[in-house]
């Protein structure tokens, strides 16, 4: 069978998507027993790897959070919920909880709204060099976060960094961006927005491409200005995407260990200690690791992420429904 004919069939299939969907979902009957073996053989790598390294850890965290254990000896003492009691009584845990949420509050609106503006600019087909520009704003996304963290530490260094040497030359005082408790979290947030701005921008570009270009053209011919087009076409069409993109962005801000650890390590005085660093500190950085304590914090963190994830599924489901109703 030539590649060409395969493509033809696929295109046909897309045209007839409606009717063929029904036949697609019916399981094939012939040779069922042997097929089951194959099916499980095909699932085996995922079952083993994902089972050991994702599913088991999720369950094991709950058990670990109920024991007293330093990670070195074999003996784990069951202590019930006392780890949770400790974690909840630890002001530094609530501090990390607060830092994580505060970081989210800084970062999510900036990422979602600024990248929407940029995506609208870079979505215009009349703009020259559009591919180059999109790539330039996207480049920070593909680079190694841990290395960005280290490089930024130097660029922002109060004594020898280039930014501060310019501030000094301009006559203003230097700023200890990462060492000053007031500046550290906002600075980290700005760097984070810069680093992952491109992802949200691509989300928005994908969303904008669902608006047919002819719609804008027709509105323009009818005499609508840019403002009106934005108000009456772009905004309503983008509404369902706003929810999806916001929640995706929120979820992404929970994965922030790399940048925070390499940038500030949680300092100064825990002002940038997000929950992941809190867990890391108790589990790996302490002289005597307390895995029970760290696991209890991890379980609470997991629940926080799960709650946001549940809201996401619900939101996507709700918008789909409304979309289908129209």
């Amino acid at each position, binding site marked *: 069978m030539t590649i060409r004919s395969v493509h033809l069939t696929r295109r046909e299939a897309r045209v007839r998507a409606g009717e063929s969907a029904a036949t697609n979902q019916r399981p094939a009957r012939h040779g069922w027993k042997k097929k089951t073996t194959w099916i499980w053989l095909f699932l085996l790598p*995922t079952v083993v790897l994902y089972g050991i390294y994702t599913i088991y850890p999720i369950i094991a965290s709950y058990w670990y959070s109920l024991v007293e254990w330093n990670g070195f000896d074999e003996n784990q003492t069951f202590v019930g919920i006392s780890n949770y009691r400790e974690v909840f009584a630890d002001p530094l845990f609530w501090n990390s909880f607060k830092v994580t949420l505060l970081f989210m509050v800084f970062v999510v609106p900036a990422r979602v709204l600024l990248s929407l503006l940029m995506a609208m600019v870079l979505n215009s087909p009349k703009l020259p060099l559009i591919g180059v520009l999109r790539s330039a704003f996207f480049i920070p996304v593909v680079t190694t976060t841990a290395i960005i963290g280290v490089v930024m530490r130097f660029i922002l260094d109060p004594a020898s960094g280039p930014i501060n040497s310019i501030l000094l030359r301009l006559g203003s005082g230097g700023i200890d961006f990462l060492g000053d408790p007031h500046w550290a979290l906002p600075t980290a947030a700005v760097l984070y927005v810069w680093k992952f701005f491109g992802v949200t921008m691509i989300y928005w570009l994908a969303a904008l491409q669902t608006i047919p270009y002819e719609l804008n053209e027709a509105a323009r011919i009818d005499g609508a200005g840019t403002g009106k087009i934005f108000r009456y076409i772009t905004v309503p069409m983008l509404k369902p995407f706003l929810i999806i993109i916001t929640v995706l962005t929120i979820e992404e801000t929970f994965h922030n260990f790399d940048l925070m650890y390499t940038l500030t390590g949680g300092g100064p005085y825990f002002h940038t200690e997000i929950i992941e660093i809190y867990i890391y500190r108790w589990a790996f950085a302490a002289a005597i690791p307390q895995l029970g304590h760290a696991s209890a914090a991890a379980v609470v963190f997991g629940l926080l*992420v799960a709650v946001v994830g549940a809201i996401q599924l619900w939101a996507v489901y709700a918008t789909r429904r409304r979309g289908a109703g129209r």
Partner: protein
Amino acid sequence: MTAQLTAPAGAQTDRQRRVLRRLPWWIATVFLIGAALIWIFPFLWMLSASLKNNMEMFSGGLRLWPKEFVWDNYARAWNDAHFGRYLINTIVVTVITVVIVTIRCATAGYVLARYRFRGSRLFLGVLIATLFVPTGYTIIPVVKISMQLHLIDSLGGLILALSGGAYVSAILIYYGYFRQIPRELEEAAVVDGAGFARTFFSVMLPLAMPVTATVAVLTFIATWNAFFLPLVFTFSRPNLRTVSVGMQAFVGETATDWAGMAAAGVISIVPVVVLFIFLQRYFVEGISGAVKS
């Protein structure tokens, strides 16, 4: 000929009008190029710093062009700071992880999309439920079980741990793609005498080439840039570090050699950036798929 001779006056104004109409777009582009240069400034600065000597780095401010080119920084990063070794580790870990992840996600996505069997709905449900599990949540049991299996402090163990990540979106991309391929194709293959595995590997998988490219590129970048797992897996074995962990250690060990550090950063970042420039289509498709589906 005559037409061309008589045309100029009208054509000129026409072209002028066209240029004028395009002018605002060109002005916008100039602004955007300026913004883009500021945007990627940290990379330009790192590149230039990697060629300066340490003295100039501290005094040079934001100036990009080095007074003299110090290639020795790269030699120091490559040999003394072991970035040659870290680069090889990173390449080995990344390539093997990409192969494992792509195969396991393709096969899983395929059977989930094409067959309904006992547990298939549960399987999908569990996958979707773990879509966003952060590494910080699973890290402790991952390390513990790797210790029990004697896989800690080894590249093999790190590769398995990285391959065992959720990668739910990769499976779902394959799932969505295989689902919309018409069943007649498989039936034709079966009529031609192909078995289950052959149908998959010589008909379905080649069809899914664009998806495979997307998944491979996304996995490549995620693995190359991974930090938390490689950090924890190489605590006691510095020679197994990947570039991102090596960079962190470099700063701790030689706090003064910033030029060498910049060179190390360039060594670590250039491969992904080059890969991205060549394969950006697949990268963008994969990311935008997250919103559309």
